[in-house]
């Protein structure tokens, strides 16, 4: 099997890799280039997301947010990054110096390696592994190794608490994450990320989320466990800042500290991309067949855009959740996993199996149920919008009376 990088290489340089040692050298250079592009994307994405998250958080909390560095503050993350890079790299006394220094690299490599298997559009993936999903799970587990190393080696009890919590959390939540993806894998018959997207369609009822009630439940479970894997609120126990000061990274400073938040925000993309590609139809363009996409670079770009937009929406929801919810307790976190997520996902796997036999994907009843499920999803969205409108109107007039200013101030209006 040839990777997409190989194909791209052959397309660009019009030679095969094996043709000469010279072109092999070129190939290695090319691989480095691809890695560089991914790293560039991930690092910048992490930085920009940090800015966007802060702005969203600010609006949710009816503040303005960072808006001084650069126009509207868009360069805030660069300033923060430079500031952290210039800070002294402190290592606490009696810390395990080797592990303390090594931990950020584990976190870093664990996350950025996951980008290799993430698709960005039709055919745009660094390596379309046939075990893509499995690879992403395996490689992101390196993060927890880094966290435990960092927490333990810091020689701080708070950091150690964070590390222990992280270990308990990731070990518990690997299971529902994997289990809740099994329906998708069953429906597709493949572990490759591209295959999973190709098996879905462009319209909501062609997505796996609305295939059956069981996949809907699995989607929710997967979303929850992905939050836990990414240490996002309500599962940010490892760095619960109000309990453990800052958790596993309490003692870090400078560049080594920078790696942790950067990894967290890069992880945000990994989580959201996983959710998008498995349940939300990935980069599929509505009403456009795969053959048409493959023939047109323009449509490939569109597919990249669609994937980006979908993932961004999921990122937004994850961010919004963080600024809405409180944090669960450590025993509740494991309890939630073992009494709710794991049993339900097991039931959902069996349910999906039966469903696949009774209502085949292409059959009319299957399609009707998928339409019905999408209708339920749309109804939920409508309810949500209704509640938003209610909350807005609830305070509108009274606010205007109190402050003498109009209440309407949508998020696209920049302060």
């Amino acid at each position: 099997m040839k990777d997409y990088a190989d194909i791209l290489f052959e397309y660009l340089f019009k030679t095969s890799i094996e043709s000469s040692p010279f072109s092999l050298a070129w190939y290695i250079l090319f691989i480095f280039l691809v890695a560089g592009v991914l790293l560039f994307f991930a690092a910048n994405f992490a930085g920009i997301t940090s800015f966007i998250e802060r702005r969203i958080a600010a609006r949710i909390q009816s503040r303005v947010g960072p808006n001084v560095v650069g126009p509207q503050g868009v360069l805030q993350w660069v300033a923060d990054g430079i500031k952290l890079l210039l800070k002294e790299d402190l290592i606490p006394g009696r810390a395990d110096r080797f592990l303390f220094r090594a931990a950020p690299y584990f976190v870093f490599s664990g996350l950025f390696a996951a980008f290799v298997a993430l698709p960005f559009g039709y055919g745009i993936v660094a390596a379309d592994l046939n075990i893509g999903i499995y690879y992403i799970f395996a490689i992101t587990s390196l993060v927890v190794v880094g966290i435990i190393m960092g927490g333990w080696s810091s020689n701080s009890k708070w950091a150690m608490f964070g590390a222990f919590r992280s270990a308990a959390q990731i070990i518990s939540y690997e299971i529902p994450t994997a289990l809740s993806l099994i329906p998708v894998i069953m429906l597709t018959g493949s572990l490759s990320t591209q295959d999973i997207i190709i098996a879905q369609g462009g319209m909501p009822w062609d997505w796996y989320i609305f295939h059956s009630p069981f996949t809907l439940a699995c989607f929710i479970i997967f979303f929850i466990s992905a939050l836990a894997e990414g240490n996002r609120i309500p599962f940010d126990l490892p760095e619960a800042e109000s309990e453990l000061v800052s958790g596993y990274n309490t003692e870090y400073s400078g560049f080594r500290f920078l790696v942790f938040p950067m990894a967290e925000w890069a992880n945000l993309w990994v989580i959201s991309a996983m959710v998008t590609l498995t349940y939300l139809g990935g980069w599929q363009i509505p009403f456009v067949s795969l053959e048409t996409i493959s023939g047109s670079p323009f449509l490939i770009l569109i597919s990249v855009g669609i994937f980006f937009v979908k993932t961004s929406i999921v990122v937004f929801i994850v961010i919004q959740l963080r600024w809405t919810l409180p944090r669960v307790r450590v025993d509740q976190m494991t309890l939630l996993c073992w009494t709710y997520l794991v049993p339900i996902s097991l039931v959902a796997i069996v349910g999906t199996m039966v469903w696949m036999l009774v209502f085949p994907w292409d059959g009319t009843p299957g399609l009707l149920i998928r339409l019905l499920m999408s209708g339920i999803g749309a109804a939920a969205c409508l309810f949500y919008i209704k509640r938003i409108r209610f909350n807005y109107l609830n305070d509108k007039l009274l606010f205007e009376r109190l402050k003498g200013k109009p209440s309407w101030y949508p998020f696209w209006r920049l302060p």
Partner: protein
Amino acid sequence: MERSGNADLKHLKPQIAPFREEMILNMGPQHPSTHGVLNFLIVTDGEVIHQALPNVGYLHRGFEKLAEQTPYTTFIPYTDRIDYLAAMFGNHAYVLAVEKLAEIEVPGRAEFLRVIVCELNRIASHLISTGALALDIGATTPFVHWIRERECINDIMEAICGARLTYNYMRIGGVSRDINESIADQILKFLDHFEPMIDEYNRLISFNEIFIKRLANVAVISQIDAVNFGLVGPNLRGSGIEMDIRKIMPYSVYDRFDFDVPFGEGFKGTLGDSYDRYFVRILEIKESCSIVRQALSKLPKGNIKAKVKRKLKIKENECYSSVESARGEMGMYLVSDGTDKPYRLKIKTGSFTAMSIVEKVSQRLMVADLIAFIGSLDVVAPEIDR
């Protein structure tokens, strides 16, 4: 050279000789959620706390000694600093004690104004308390929303008395400034806006399932313990005991208002758990809104200050007067000796007794629960140490 903090720790350590698998954790005074400079020495086994010893005194400023060297009239600004989140109650408790001793009749309008500012201040203080509890649990947004509402109260307070935190509003025999139509209007506008916000806040956090799970059935204080440890205010009422100084020993003009005293009923779990203490405060905010409205509608006309000698001397006597502060009973035991300075002023505060229960209730809690528990007790460090 040995710093005092170390000396304290050395003294505490033998008291809690840990087993082999336990560890001692020093929480505070720089911990993010100890609500000021408090120190807890925690013996834990993993996440489970075996013992938590509160270590207070970091904010001891010796107000009781200062009072003995300050004339009656000029001690009022100090009482602002006893509990900076609810400075009006410090003012009120002190002036009540002095007025009682000096037998000064306070004009009706001043009494009503005192009630208005006190209840507004109670709202502001409960906003911080409930918001900070949500912050301790990990929800950042509710706190900021409450801070925004509190800012409106601060604006009102600034318009009334000129300061946003340390009001120094009350005087012996009355209050320092009157309110006018526009301020009264501003208060009413704020209340109109604020009351729906309580419901919105409840939707956002109070009825959130994770929040309920974090607080319900956590750190239960039984009625017996609550009385035994002398808890006061919302903490006591959270345990289901209906005791409110405003009702049982009405001071000022509180007997002229129609209001309920909310108390815990085990809203989402056991009676006396953290959620009860939290939710009693939310209900109290609503009651305070209603009291402010009533006081504004009944506000009589007239003087705001009785005539009091500039150099007030009080003959030998003593009295104990208490007010229902946002953190429960704030009592002032005042002894006079015929000079213009108090002979002795003992300040009894709610946070002080609330802290003493931590050692008992914190056993078998988890580290995260301890933080929720301290948050639900609503202790304010300067009020403990005075």
